[in-house]
């Protein structure tokens, strides 16, 4: 299955992949982040029970320096 994370295509073989698995894979499970799938925010309380589908587009954001 192919999905997009922050504009980059990623391929996964496994089934039953959750959004939490993506967060762990990204190395940010202990950071502050927010995640959106196809334009809709996925609350952190739901990421372990939300499954990834082929073609999903994710945006994962954090806070950076800015004015």
């Amino acid at each position: 299955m192919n999905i997009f994370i922050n504009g980059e295509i990623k391929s996964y073989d496994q089934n039953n992949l959750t959004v939490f698995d993506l967060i762990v894979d990204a190395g940010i499970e202990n950071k502050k982040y927010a995640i959106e799938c196809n334009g809709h925010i996925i609350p952190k309380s739901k990421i372990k029970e939300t499954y990834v589908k082929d073609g999903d587009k994710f945006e994962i954001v954090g806070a950076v320096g800015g004015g």
Partner: protein
Amino acid sequence: MANQNDELIIGSRSFKSRLLVGTGKYKDFNETKQAIVESGAEIVTVAIRRTNIGQDANEPSLLDFLPPSDFTYLPNTAGCFNADDSVRTLRLARELLDGHNLVKLEVLGDKETLYPNVIETVEAAKTLVKDGFEVMVYTSDDPIVAKMLEDVGCVAIMPLASLIGSGMGILNPWNLDIIIKNSSVPVIVDAGVGTASDAAIAMELGCDGVLMNTAIAEAQKPVMMAGAMKKAIEAGREAFLSGRMNKKLYQASPSSPISGLIK
């Protein structure tokens, strides 16, 4: 003597410092932290951007240096050019910051001048206020637009004093004065301050606060400038509250007695 009870009230929150600072453009996170601590600021702006995927889990982040428990974060919409992108960004920010609802809305209209698109700004503000956000809003120095933003429920009006990051200073004291006189929510100069006297001038005009980033971050010694800004904000505020003397054009008035001179 400073008035100890002179708090800045923004929406449901109150603050002692009237200096709000950005966290961008510093050499590193250490310098960011030192400058912000020196500034005494309680409110710090942050931008919301895509996270690096596959990063080292131990790589430090801004939030490690400026813990959200010690500062009031003000996520911004820098880089957004329409209402929809701004609203989307701030909803992500609210999720990121565990439901925190105080935000800085800025909808830009032009990449060169970073001048705000006030029509998109008003639309975004309406949506955000309905959605439960407390919106501090970057805008032009147009008093009519400032009033519209207040009327749709923004908790602070933040007009530019000159272009973002330009350091050109307070170019519009007369417009700022009209906005301040008409506003029942705090007016905070956002953008344009270059040095300490600019900050003092804004506060002497009666602004409730000043938000700045580049003036500190791009000073040759940012930490020292942060301290200078803190003092300038306090001095300007106290001068405003003191009520300045009347100007007497071309009329000198001696400070020493005119009688008792030796003959």
